[in-house]
Structure formats: structure tokens, C-alpha cells
């Protein structure tokens, strides 16, 4: 009986084809078991039995070794368990320790459910994946048995045995003879299919990849950068509140950020005693902070934040504000260098000429730290000879 495949190929071609196997069909489970036993007796090792459902006793009739798939399950399952448990340990103890319900960081009984679930998940999915990809080498739709009369029947109502050509005892006429002796009907020869080269560089295939990549990138970009910033996804962000550094119509001055009410005295603080007075009255104000590296670093940070926009990073009066405000004079002048610390403190606190008061923005300690830093800046341009000596 001609198969669909052989009909397609044509008789003449068949002669040049390589034989894959020879198979025959059987009608009852008893006869296929018997045939399998006979095949083993005959000495065939590379033969296979195809049945529409697992037939009891076939494995022992074919003398198959027990399946080792269980070892895969064991390995994957234990790996999953170990990974889950150690991962939870790492998260809860090392990377992000949080006290929850007064329990220790390493509350192992609470890790049991997730460990169990991950074990089951990895073992089940791993076993099936290994079985399909490595034990069966699936997907394999180009196998010689597909689309044959033989496959049509073993898929449905009959039982098939086929001896594969790689068997050392394989001989076309002997195998045919064996099959008919064993009671097979519809003996059929299966040929190796022609191997078509896989054309990875086919322009159509590459075009498809480019289209998929473009669409994926576009959708991802739109979702992450556009869609999530549209309503209703932004509704959580739309709130009636004041935002810092922004205008607000609620107050007459239009500022969103507010100053303390005039005359407010913070708890534990004495108001600045020379507030609003000329600097000539300032006396007995000395820097309470030590001249240490920490203080100077703090002072540099505050100076760079609050003072440098007008005075420049080095106190030279080189404003970064592009003339929006008149440039202040340099801090390296003899006048400022000879001022006592208290005088600079007074100017920061009280303001001078165009410069506003900074007593709301900069804390008292930070002001004194800034003064230490200004002294460092001044000294850097007017170093003394002794500085070189200490350098030795």
C-alpha cells in the first residue's frame, strides 16, 4: 500500500532514498506483545512499538530499562527547594532585613510554604521540559513515521512494530520476513526525509525578526514612557497639595513654599540679638565650631548650595546667574579678610545691601561652618610662608 508520502515523492525517487525503518501493523494487544517478544528473541535492539495507548507489559516484553526521568525530578526539585530557601534567607537577612511581627529575620517556618511551592513548580515544569526536549527530542514533526498509513493506525486503533535501519541485524528482506512471520499486516517501508537546509538568512525571516523587534520595542517604549503617564494611571499623582519650588495662587505672594510667621521663635532658641542693626554694633560673637575637617566639609556643602550662586564657588564674586542680579564683591578683599567671624555671621543672618537674610534657610551651625569654609577659601589665595613649612 502506497503512503501519502511515497505517492508525493514518486516511485522513481524511492529507489534512491535511504530506508529509515520497516514496520507492520497488528490488530490486538496480545499479538503486539507477542511480536515484541519475538523481536527481542530475534536479536533486534533498535526497534520500536507504537500503540495508541500504553499497553501493559510492553516494557518488559521489549526489555526496556526503567525510566530514569525520576532522577531529573529529584535534581530539579531539590535545586528549586535550595534556591527558594536560600533566596528567602538572603532577602530577609542580608539584603533587606525588616522586623516583622517581632520575629527574627531568619524565621524559617514562614519560609516553608514558598519553599514547597517553588519545589513543586520547578520539579513539575523541569521534569516535563527535560522529558520533551531531551528524552523525546521534541518537537519533531519531520520524523519518517509521520503522515504514513502506519502512523494513522497506531494513532487510532491498531498496534505497530517497526525495526529501524540502524539496528546491526537490519536487512530489508529478513525484517520483512520476520514481520510477516510475527503476524504483521500492511508491512511498510519508511524512508528518511530529505533534509532541507535551514535558511536563517532568508530575507523574509530577517524581515520578520526586524518587524517583531520594532513592534516589541515600540510597544514597550509606549507602555513604559507614555501610557503609564496618562489617566487613569496618573490619578494617584493628581492631588490637591502644594509642591515645593512651584507657584501657588493660594497665597498673595504666589509662593508655594512658606516662611515662618514673622516673630516666630523656635523652641530652645534665642532670637538673634543684633537682628536689623548695623554691623558696627556686633561684638562678642565668636565661632563656636572647631576648625576641623568635618566642619569645613559641611561648610563647603552649604556654601556651594546657598552662597555660590552669587559669590561663586571660590568666593570671587563671579556669579553664575548671568547678570540677573548685580554681582556681589569678592570675598577675598582686605575688608572681608580682616572682618572678625562675627561680622560675616551678622551679614549672613541679617543680609546686606541687595543680599537678603539667610537666617530661615541656613541653620546657625551651618552659618558658622560656612564661615570656616570662607576662611579656607581666603587663605588659599593669601597663603602665609608658614603654610609651606607645615606642609613639610
Amino acid at each position: 500500500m502506497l503512503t501519502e508520502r511515497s505517492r508525493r515523492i514518486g516511485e522513481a525517487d524511492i529507489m534512491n532514498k535511504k530506508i529509515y525503518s520497516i514496520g507492520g501493523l497488528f490488530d490486538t494487544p496480545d499479538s503486539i506483545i507477542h511480536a515484541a517478544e519475538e523481536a527481542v528473541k530475534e536479536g533486534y535492539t533498535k526497534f520500536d512499538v507504537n500503540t495508541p495507548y500504553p499497553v501493559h507489559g510492553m516494557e518488559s516484553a521489549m526489555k526496556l530499562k526503567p525510566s530514569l526521568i525520576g532522577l531529573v525530578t529529584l535534581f530539579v526539585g531539590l535545586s528549586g527547594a535550595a534556591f527558594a530557601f536560600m533566596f528567602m534567607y538572603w532577602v530577609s537577612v542580608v539584603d533587606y532585613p525588616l522586623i516583622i511581627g517581632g520575629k527574627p529575620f531568619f524565621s524559617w517556618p514562614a519560609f516553608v510554604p514558598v519553599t514547597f511551592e517553588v519545589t513543586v513548580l520547578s520539579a513539575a515544569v523541569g521534569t516535563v521540559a527535560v522529558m520533551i526536549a531531551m528524552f523525546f527530542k521534541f518537537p519533531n514533526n519531520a520524523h519518517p513515521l509521520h503522515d504514513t498509513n502506519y502512523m494513522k493506525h497506531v494513532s487510532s486503533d491498531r498496534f505497530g512494530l517497526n525495526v529501524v535501519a540502524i539496528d546491526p541485524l537490519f536487512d530489508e528482506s529478513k525484517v520483512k520476513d520476520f514481520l510477516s512471520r510475527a503476524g504483521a499486516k500492511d508491512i511498510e517501508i519508511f524512508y528518511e526525509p530529505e533534509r532541507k537546509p535551514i535558511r536563517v538568512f532568508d530575507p523574509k525571516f530577517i524581515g520578520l525578526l526586524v518587524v517583531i523587534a520594532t513592534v516589541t520595542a515600540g510597544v514597550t517604549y509606549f507602555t513604559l514612557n507614555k501610557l503609564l503617564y496618562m489617566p487613569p494611571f496618573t490619578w494617584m499623582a493628581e492631588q490637591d497639595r502644594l509642591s515645593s519650588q512651584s507657584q501657588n495662587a493660594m497665597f498673595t505672594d504666589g509662593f508655594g513654599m512658606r516662611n515662618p510667621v514673622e516673630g516666630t521663635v523656635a523652641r530652645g532658641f534665642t532670637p538673634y540679638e543684633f537682628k536689623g542693626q548695623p554691623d558696627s554694633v556686633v561684638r562678642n560673637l565668636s565661632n563656636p565650631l572647631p576648625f576641623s575637617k568635618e566642619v569645613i566639609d559641611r561648610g563647603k556643602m552649604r556654601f556651594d548650595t546657598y552662597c555660590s550662586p552669587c559669590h561663586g564657588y571660590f568666593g570671587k564674586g563671579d556669579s553664575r546667574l548671568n547678570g540677573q542680579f548685580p554681582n556681589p564683591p569678592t570675598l577675598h578683599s582686605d575688608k572681608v579678610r580682616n572682618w572678625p567671624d562675627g561680622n560675616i555671621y551678622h551679614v549672613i543672618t541679617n543680609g546686606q545691601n541687595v543680599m537678603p537674610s539667610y537666617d530661615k534657610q541656613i541653620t546657625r551651625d551651618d552659618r558658622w561652618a560656612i564661615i570656616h569654609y570662607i576662611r579656607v577659601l581666603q587663605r588659599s589665595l593669601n597663603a602665609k610662608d608658614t603654610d609651606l613649612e607645615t606642609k613639610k
Partner: protein
Amino acid sequence: MRTFDYTQELPVVDGQPSAKAIDDVVSKPLDTKPGKVWKILITITSLMLLVGGGALVWTFYKGIGVWGNNQPVSWGFDIVNFVFWVGIGHAGTLISAILFLLRQRWRTGIARFAEAMTIFAVMCAGIFPAIHTGRAWLDGYLFPYPNANHIWVNFTSPLLWDVFAVSTYFTVSLVFWYIGLIPDFATLRDRTDNKLKKTIYTIFSLGWRHSTRHWQHYEKTYMILAGFATPLVLSVHTIVSFDFAVSVIPGWHTTIFPPYFVAGAVFSGFAMVQNVLIFVRQAFNMKHIITIKHLERMNQIIILVGTMVGYAYAMEFFIAWYSGNQFETFTFINRAFGPYAWAYWIMVSCNVILPQLFWSKKIRTTIVPMFIIGIIVNIGMWFERFVIIVTSLSRDFLPSSWGMYTPTIYDLGILMFSFGLFFTNVLIFVKTMPSVSISEVKAVVDGAQPSHRGGGHHE
């Protein structure tokens, strides 16, 4: 009294259909154009899906403020429906895995269908935790992955265990189901002449050749999966019950919850499988494959687990009194006689009293009464979750913070959506895939196994 030979197994398939006949019966719904009944049903379920989907979309747009949830009842229909649907799923795994391990060969006719129902039910269940977070598009944070915020999930929380349990359950059920389908897809591939169908079946059968060298690993893997699915299914509803039992709310904080929830899950699941099977065997002429004996055995399991659930109800009351804890005592008196007493008594009569009718052999082997009792059981089990969740939350420790819960039309809409999704899936499934396992049924037909090896049934 009738004498019975217990040394012989009963046939699990009526008559002795040939393998070809089994192919034909099972693939008939796949090869024929949908009938009138099917079209009417899918119209109804799609409408449910559509209208309910409107409620879902409105929830996404406006937020979960459109639901009836409030303080103190911060869990309402969302969690009730979640627990209900997860429970429905459990019967499928019980039939396909536990009965497989127990060598209950009668399961073959109904296992495929029950597994499919598991998957659809877990899909329905999964909707609710996903949407009750409010902003469902940020649900990725439920999983522990290295994110830009440098924070991790809380591995000591039952709610997080739930994420793992439900997603594992869904994945493993899907894999188990698909593994069972591979040989059947191969059979369908080899019998169809339709080119499109052939391509689809070829892809999904992966090139299965019914080879004994494959069957050997296949059967072993199937057993391993069944072995894993069994503790998995028990763990899933156990962990769902931890969502409640680990809290300190009176009526929730009890150790009986895990077995009580698992029994309830099997109870409602079997009722649902029984209902849908009755429909399928009627509609697709499979009365000899899904026999009345199958249904009777399912009804026997329903009465068993129903009685276990009844025991749990009684034990809760006993412990409430025996513990001497006044909050616990109040909660249970409040359940039976408080403002939600109507829900409580619906639950008791549907779950404990009415299923007792199955003691009568006539009722448990007659289609119409068993179908009605199946529906009643599912109504009862839905109300059980409602009673547990709503009564405990609405009246806990402080009378000053008591409050009542009323679902809104959106809650009902989303419940309808989940039913629409479930039944639409079921209907599509029965028309596109073999709803009875072809290879498994062939293997248990009389005479399918070699005669001298002790398989099958001997007259």
C-alpha cells in the same frame, strides 16, 4: 441481597466500544459545526462576559471605590469570589491526580474535563487578587524580582504565599493537562483532513508518535506529576485558609481552617464538575463514556466531603463555646442570629442538609435531582465564604467600629464576569479539544490490555 464478586473490577466504560469508535465519539464535537444549543449558550456566556467586563473596566478606570468594600469590611466580594473559584478548581486536581494515585480507573472518563475546569476556575480566581490591589497594572510587584526600588516582598506573609501557591497551582495544572493532551492531539492530527486543523494539532502534538519508548517516560512523568499535584492541591487551599487563620480576627483565627477549607473546596468543585459533566454527556452523546456510575461516585464523594464540612461548622461552634473566649463566642452567635443570619442559614441548609438526600440511591442516580443539588451545593459554598469573610469583619472586637457590608452593582457585575469567563472557556474547550482523554479511555476498555497480564475485566 445481591451477591457481588469483589475480585473482579467493574467495567469503567459501558459496552465495549472499539478504539475507532472512541476516536469518533470524542472528536465529533470538534469535527461538526456548533449546534443550536451551543450557540445559544455561548451567546449567553459571552453577554455575561461583556456586561461583567464593563464593571471590570469601570473599576479599572475609577478605582475600587466603586465596590461595596468599606471599613471595617475591607474584604468583600473580591476575596469571597477568589476563595470560591480556587475551591472549584480543586475537584479537577483531585480527580486527575489523587484518584490516579489511588488507581481509581473510573476517573479516566472525567479527568480531562475536570482538569480543564481546574484551569478555568483558577483563571477566574486569579482575577480577584489581581484587581483587588486597585491598580492592577502594577501587580508585577507581587512577585519578588530585583526592582528599581530595591525592595522585596514579605516572605512571612500568607498573602505572598498565596501568590506563589495560586501561580504554581495554575502552572502545574496547565502542564499536567497539556501532557495528557499530547497523545490525543497526535490522534486528532492523524485523523483530520482539514489543513488548518492539521497544522494546529501538529504544532501542539509536538510530533508525538505513540512510541512505547516514549510512553514509558510519559507514564512515569504522569505519575510524578500526579504525586506532586496531590500535596500541591492540599497546600493551595491550606494557604488560602492561612490568609484568614494567621490573622487575629475572631472566627478566622482557628487551626481547623486548613482541612475545613480543603474539604469545602473539594465539595464545591465536585458539585461543579458534576453539573458540567451532566451537560456535556447530554449534549455530546457520551453517556457510555461518562456513565451514570461516574456521576453516582461523584455524588458519593459530595456527600462525604459535605458531611466533613458540616462537621467543621459544628466544631467551630463547639470551640467558640469551649474556648470561653467571649469574642469568639459572640462571633458565632452573631453568625447564626445576627444581621447576616440569612446568609448563614442558606449556607447550612445548602451545604449540610440538602446534600443528605444523596443517601437515597434513587436520587444520586437520577440526573435532574442530582443536577439541582449540585447547583445548591455551589450556592451554599459561595455563601460559606461570604459568611466567613463578611460576618467576621463586620463585627469584631470593638462595637464602636462595627459596620455593615452591601455589595454594589459593580461587585455583582464582576462576579457575573467570572462566571461568564468560566462557562465561555468551558464551551470553547468542548468544541476545540478532546474533552475526554482518548488514549486513557482506550486503555481501560474491556479487552484493551493483553489478556494474560491481568489487565481489564473478565466475565
